[in-house]
Every structure is written in C-alpha cells, then in structure tokens.
C-alpha cells in the first residue's frame, strides 16, 4: 500500500506543479472553430472593468480563460502530421459573413446558342491546323500565321467574267471582311441588349421615341403598300390618300426615284438623231431566225408524213369472220354491242358471248 500511496502523492505533486487547463463558466461559450471564434455571453465584472488599475489585468485573465476553452476544443480535433508539423483539420465555419461581390449568375445564352439548343445542334470541334493543297503546308484556321498564309495564297485573284475587269478584287475582299466583322459586332451588342432587356431601335425606320410621328407612320404605310410583287399597283387606297414623300420612301421603293430629265438637244444633234431613226426604219431587213426556220421545216415534214400514213391502205389480207365489221374502220377500241337499240334480228358486232 505504501507504494501506491507514494505514486499517488508523486502524481499529485506533479499535477500541482502545473496550472489547470479547465475553466469554470456560468454559461457555456459559443464556439465557431472554423473561424477560430468564441463568444462569451457571461456577465462582466463591472467593478474590475471600470477601474483603470485592474482593467487590463481583468481583460487579460478573461481573454486567457476564453482562449483556453477555445484551444481545448481545437486540441480535441483529430490531428495529422504534415511535413513535421502537427495539423488539425478545422470544421466548416458556421458564422456567415457577407461576400465582397454578388453570387455570379449563369451567363445568358446568345440568340444562336438558344437556337442551337432548341434544334439540338452541338458544336463540332475543328482542327487548329488544316492542310492546304495549294500551298502544300499546314495552315492555321485562324490567328497567328493565318493572314500570312492567306497573303501568300492570294498573290493573284481572278476577276470574274460578270464584273468590270477594272475592279480591285483585293479591295473587295477586304471590304467583305470588314462587313463581316461589323455584323458580328452588331450581333454581339444585340445579344448584350437582349440579355439586359434593353430596348434597341429597329434597323428600318428611324424611331426617336416610343411613338412614331405621323410623318414616319405615313412613310411606313407607303413603303408597306409598295412591298408587293407588283410594287403596290393593285393595292387599294383610302379616299384622298397620298403617297408619302421624302427621305426613306425613294430609297426603299424601287422605281420611285425621279429620273433626271435629259438636257434639251441642240438642233444639229436632234437632226442627226432623227436621221438615224429614219435610216434604221428604211434599211430594215427581215431577220432570219435559223432555229425557228429549221423547226418549222421539220414540223411540216412530220405533218406530211402522218397524212400519207393515214391515207395509205392497210397492207395484208382483209380480215375474215363474222361480225368483224368493217375492217377498214378497225380501231383499238373495244367492239361495242347494239348501242342500246334492241333489234334481235339484226346482227350486231361485239364480243362473242359464251
């Protein structure tokens, strides 16, 4: 028993050497170990807090106790060793703090993306490099070295037959490209406007406000009326309705722009014109259309041949047999019976009945 007492005594002495790690609190503390936060809602000792002498001492002891409690909690967590340092895994923080920026919203779809989604079109991945047969090398689809390759390829551009031979095809190509870029930019801006639900002005008629003016409306009506295949020739009109005039009308309706009157010709020019006209009439000669003539000739030949065929007597023996009818009047038609007239005595043609 002595040994036991001795050990117990020794342990007690050892324990007395160290200060305790336990703290007594009236109310339990609130912890958020994820943020290393603790909140002590116990009443403060106002007497010690209000006197300047004991304040710092009191605050120190209070903080020490609460920190001890917090660290006790942390030391309970499972530890692991990472590169010679003992590390504890902290739980998720429970205090919710406001964010610096709002939660990002998913990006709104563009018009094309919406359409592709509805139709189930998926983007096909293209190779960044493509083999160019003409240059005999790999050319990037876009970006670095694409322009140089294009320049090398188009050292000469043929002018098509239907164009003026003096057109600058390089300029034309550059213009087409800049148009494309501008269109793309416009579509991008439209997509942004759609996503932000901003009203954008229509492309056709200029609208300054929500309500169009009377002038604009009449212009729109005139243009709409002329937008048929016959340019509105057969469209009804209101009584006393007049066509709008001015900007926007002539540009949109074909054939509406006034032709400039030719200048009054001088006497000499007029005389020459008239003489030319007279000449053209007097020197008229029939034009020969070879195609027409040939077809006409062929047609007459064919007609003649068919006539001959009709008049020709059928060759071979005339058919015998009863009720065969007039062999000359033979047709492909089915032989008819008495044609509705009852005359049993009379022999009629027709199919033999069995």
């Amino acid at each position, binding site marked *: 028993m002595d040994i036991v007492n001795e050990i117990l005594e020794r342990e007690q002495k050892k324990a007395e050497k160290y200060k305790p790690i336990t703290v007594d609190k009236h109310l339990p503390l609130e912890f958020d170990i994820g943020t290393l936060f603790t909140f002590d809602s116990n009443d403060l000792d106002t007497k010690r807090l209000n006197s300047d002498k004991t304040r710092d001492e009191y605050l120190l002891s209070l903080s020490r106790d609460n920190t001890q409690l917090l660290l006790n909690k942390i030391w309970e967590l499972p530890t692991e060793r990472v590169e010679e340092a003992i590390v504890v895994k902290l739980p998720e923080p429970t205090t919710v703090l406001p964010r610096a920026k*709002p939660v990002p919203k998913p990006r709104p779809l563009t018009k094309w993306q919406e359409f592709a989604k509805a139709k189930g079109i998926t983007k096909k991945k293209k190779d960044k490099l493509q083999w160019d047969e003409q240059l005999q090398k790999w050319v990037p689809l876009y970006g670095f070295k694409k322009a140089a390759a294009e320049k090398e390829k188009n050292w000469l551009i043929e002018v098509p037959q239907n164009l003026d031979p003096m057109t600058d095809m390089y300029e034309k190509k550059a213009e087409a490209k800049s148009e494309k870029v501008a269109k793309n930019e416009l579509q991008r801006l439209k997509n942004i406007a759609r996503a932000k639900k901003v009203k954008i002005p229509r492309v056709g008629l200029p609208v300054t406000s929500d309500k169009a003016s009377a002038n604009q409306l009449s212009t729109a009506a005139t243009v709409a009326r002329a937008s048929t295949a016959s340019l509105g020739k057969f469209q009804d009109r209101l009584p006393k309705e007049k066509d709008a005039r001015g900007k926007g009308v002539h540009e949109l309706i074909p054939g509406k722009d006034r032709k400039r009157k030719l200048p009054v010709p001088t006497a000499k020019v007029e005389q020459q014109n008239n003489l030319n006209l007279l000449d053209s009439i007097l020197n008229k000669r029939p034009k020969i259309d070879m195609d027409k003539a040939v077809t006409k000739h062929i047609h007459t030949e064919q007609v003649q041949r068919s006539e001959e065929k009709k008049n020709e007597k059928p060759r071979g023996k005339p058919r015998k047999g009863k009720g065969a009818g007039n062999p000359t009047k033979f047709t492909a038609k089915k032989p008819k019976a008495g044609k509705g007239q009852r005359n049993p005595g009379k022999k009629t043609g027709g199919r033999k009945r069995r």
Partner: protein
Amino acid sequence: MAVMQRLKKPTTRRGKKVLQSKDPKPTEGPKQCVFMQGRNPSERTKQLLKDIYDLKKPDAAYLKRKNDFVPFEDATLIEKMCYKKEAALFGVGSHSKKRPHNIVLGRTFDYGVLDMIELGAENFKAMSEFQNMKVLAGLKPCLVFNGPAWDLNSDLKRLKSLFTDLFHREKVESIRLQGLEHTISFTATDDGIIYMRSYRIQLKKSGQRTPRIELEEIGPSIDFKLRRTKLAADDLYKEACRIPREAKTITKKNISRDAFGSKLGRIHMGKQDINRLQTRKMKGLKKTPEERKQMRIKNKQAKQTAKQAQPMET
C-alpha cells in the same frame, strides 16, 4: 455603384485576364482592406490604422494621403478606392473637435458601402509601446468576444460580424497547432465601450496533451467608443450573405457504398413496350404477298365475328 457590363471587348490577352480576375466568383479569397486618411487625421488615428494594417498585412493597403471627405456624408471616394484596390473592407481615420480621434470601419458589397460603423479611439497604446516579441505576419488569430452586450445591441451585433470579417483572414481547411499564436479579444460593455486587446499565446506544459495557455499583451490596446452607424438594409445584407450553389453540399440520391467501398447505384426503369420495339429489318423476314393476303382475310374475319358478337351481347 454596381459596375456595368462591359460593352467594349478587351483588346489584349493580358487585359482580358485582369478583367476575368475581377469577375465575381463563387468562392472568394481573403477580403482586401484599404486604410485611408480622412479630413485632418490625428497622430493617434494614423498610428491606430497603421497598427491594424500591420495586423492585417498581406491583405491590406495603407494610403497616406489626406482626403477632404466625410464618409457618413459622401462615401463615393471610399467606393472608388475600394474599386481601384479590389478591396471589400475599409478604415478611415479623422479628427475633429466634435468627434475626436474618429475611426470609421466598414465593408462594401459589389463596390457599394454595406456597413459603416464610427468608433472613437478614447485610449490607445500602440504596438511599438509594448516592448516584447510580436507574432508572425499573416497568422490566423483567435477571436474572443466577451460580454453579453455583443448579442443584445443590434449595432454591436453587426460590429461583431464586422470585426470577425476584418480579422478572420480566410477560410482554411486545416491549421498548424503551433501556429495558434495570436488572440484578439473584444470586450463590450453596456454603455457602448469596446476594449480591443491583442495577445500572444504561450503554450505551457500542463501534464496533459492539451497545453496550458498563458497570454502576453503585444498591442495595440484600444478603447473604442461606439458612435454613429450606417448599417445595410436587411434585404441587401441577406443578398450579400447568399451562399452560392457551388458552395453548398448537395447529397446525391440513389448512390450508396457497400462495406468493400464499391459504389452502388439504384436506378429506376420505366416499363418497356416490347410491341413497339423496332427490330432489325431483313428481306428474308418480309412477308410474301400471299401471306399478306391471308393476314388481311384473317383480320377481316376477326372483325366480322367481333361485330356479330356485339349485338348478341346487347
């Protein structure tokens, strides 16, 4: 001051990267802080902000220039500076006869001021006045709030959240036990005085696994007096506290793991209609015209018999 969506595309790749880094993200990093001087700052407020800046260091900027503005009247300068520095927290120091040694602490949301709380520094003892070893920069401190007033007063409640936001640094997965070196304690009394003290933790032997804690004051030691406040409306605050869907943990249904750790899934199948199943078409399986004719006759007969049977039943 919400930022408009850019209409103009960035022209360089680098510019694009910068703009992308400024975009809102589902999980944000540590909040940056800007410390500014207001109208006629006193030596005390300057030093105080400098000390807080030292505590906050890698995630803060200290601006020395004086600015002739009053945060509670016009906060556009704060919003501008926060936008420029990509910061969400700010501190402004100023001094006047009416409000001596005035410190305004606050935070922004979406580059607009969310909360702003004015504190008067009544007593201040700088960090340099404590002649002892300080803590390493960039450590995550323990935050201790004492006193029931923190929960009873709505302004103090928000101030508690603001102090936590200001000093907690960053959400971390794990922490080194030896790195728990710093404690900041905030004690609030009922008459609106907040005692802020900062201590270094000393881990002592206790004869057990958990160490005994001793504290040593390293400063700064500040006695704040609560002055004016400008708190966010509830709906704005709620919007700011929204947790993104990505951060929420969603449990997936119908997935389980057995004792060996292999993944098991439970799926639901609708009933399959075998009659409508399209099988392989072959010429050899095609019906001859005679067979088809017989089928038709058969169908017809079946229909007729059905028709005859009906009136008999009725």
